[in-house]
């Protein structure tokens, strides 16, 4: 088995096109998902049982079924609402819903970890609920939420590959097309994988820069005894 680079070189435009579409879809789902998640999280703290129940059900369902089924449900469910939308739109909607559920889980968890007293003191000093959220709650939620939010964004980027199943022309789909033409699955999927690989790495770099800007300490291994280091640390690099 050899690795024929010509495959990659000849079809470079297709891969690029697919990657570009992947990035666009992920960007939309990221922004839309965050906005939706913020709304869901805020709503989940309102003391109204039916609303909270609805939200919990939504979160459980979206996180409990495979993303590919969500994609199909949205895509084939649209006709029931009387609308026929192109696969790109339904796929992006599905990814946005997916992202919103995971983002909301993060925001809720950070919100719940915040002591009730923070809310009390904000209200005691005369702030309305909205002002309390804006000036006291949100600033304290943002920083700790960032790592898990980034983590889920990378997950979402990888899940976008599933949209190929409803023929959205993103990176995986292009890979399948090229594979169909060249019958060189190893080269094709390796390159496709490589491109997917780079994207999170770039995001990780960006987040690291963002974290430094926000002044967050990195989790250093700290000092461990030699015995501990022998068993408990798997990378030689970590000291």
């Amino acid at each position, binding site marked *: 088995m050899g690795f024929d680079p010509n495959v990659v070189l000849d079809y470079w435009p297709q891969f690029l096109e697919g990657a570009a579409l992947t990035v666009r879809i992920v960007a939309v789902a990221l922004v839309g998902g965050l906005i939706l998640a913020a709304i869901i999280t805020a709503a989940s703290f309102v003391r109204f049982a039916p609303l909270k129940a609805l939200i919990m059900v939504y979160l459980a369902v979206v996180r409990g079924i495979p993303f590919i089924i969500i994609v199909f449900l949205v895509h*084939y469910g649209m006709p029931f609402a009387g609308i026929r939308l192109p696969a790109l739109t339904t796929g992006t909607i599905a990814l946005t819903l997916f992202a919103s559920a995971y983002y909301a889980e993060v925001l809720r968890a950070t919100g719940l970890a915040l002591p009730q007293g923070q809310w009390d003191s904000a209200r005691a000093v005369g702030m309305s609920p909205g002002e309390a959220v804006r000036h006291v709650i949100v600033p304290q939620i943002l920083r700790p939420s960032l790592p898990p939010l980034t983590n889920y964004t990378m997950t979402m980027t990888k899940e976008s590959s599933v949209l190929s199943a409803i023929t959205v022309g993103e990176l995986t789909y292009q890979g399948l097309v090229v594979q169909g033409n060249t019958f060189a699955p190893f080269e094709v999927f390796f390159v496709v994988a490589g491109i997917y690989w780079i994207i999170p790495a770039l995001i990780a770099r960006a987040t690291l820069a963002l974290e430094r800007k926000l002044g967050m300490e990195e989790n250093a291994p700290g000092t461990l005894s030699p015995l501990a280091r022998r068993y408990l640390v798997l990378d030689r690099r970590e000291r």
Partner: protein
Amino acid sequence: MSFSFGFFWESLADLAPYALVNLQLGAIAFVLAVTCGTLLTIVRSFKIAPVNMVIGVFISFVRGTPLIIQIFLCFYALPSAGIDMGPMTAGIVAIALNSAVFISELQRGSLRALAVGQLEAATALGLSPLLIWAKVILPQLFRRIVPMLLNEATIVVKGTALLSIITVVELLRAAQQIGAADFRPFEPLVGAALYFLVINLVLATATERVERKIAAERR
């Protein structure tokens, strides 16, 4: 077009045996994943630089690329290397390897939290590294990560749905086939979703129970 409950119930009944397929696939993949993952963790602890470097690259690859691509690589690409597996085997291997990496990373994270004092005591008693691993480290590690392992199990089961794309006849594919036969794709899909939801709920309840038990034991 409106939702046909009749067809929905029919589909539910027809899909039942396929739910078992996913469960079985998931179970096999998960067991494989835990085994491989643990072995991987132990190998990594030997800290042989070239080995760890290769493992590092492998882990980065598996974590950074979509599962579906890994499945495609196992199913479409490996045959050209002479490894020809049927779709089911290829799928299980891909999911298992993927999960093994995440499990190993889970263990790596948990290792930090282990009480160093125990290691000191064990070494002082003259236990060999192998025994230390088997008797001291692993049991505690697993106790800590059981909830996360259960979470990983749900991810594995959800992954089995992707095998529909490489022609494995499991829940999703069966739902698609039923839907195609009657030109009503939606109802069987909801049925398939429901089965996955039930499996997920069962695993989630099990996780909660285990978490509670661990919390009680901690005291």
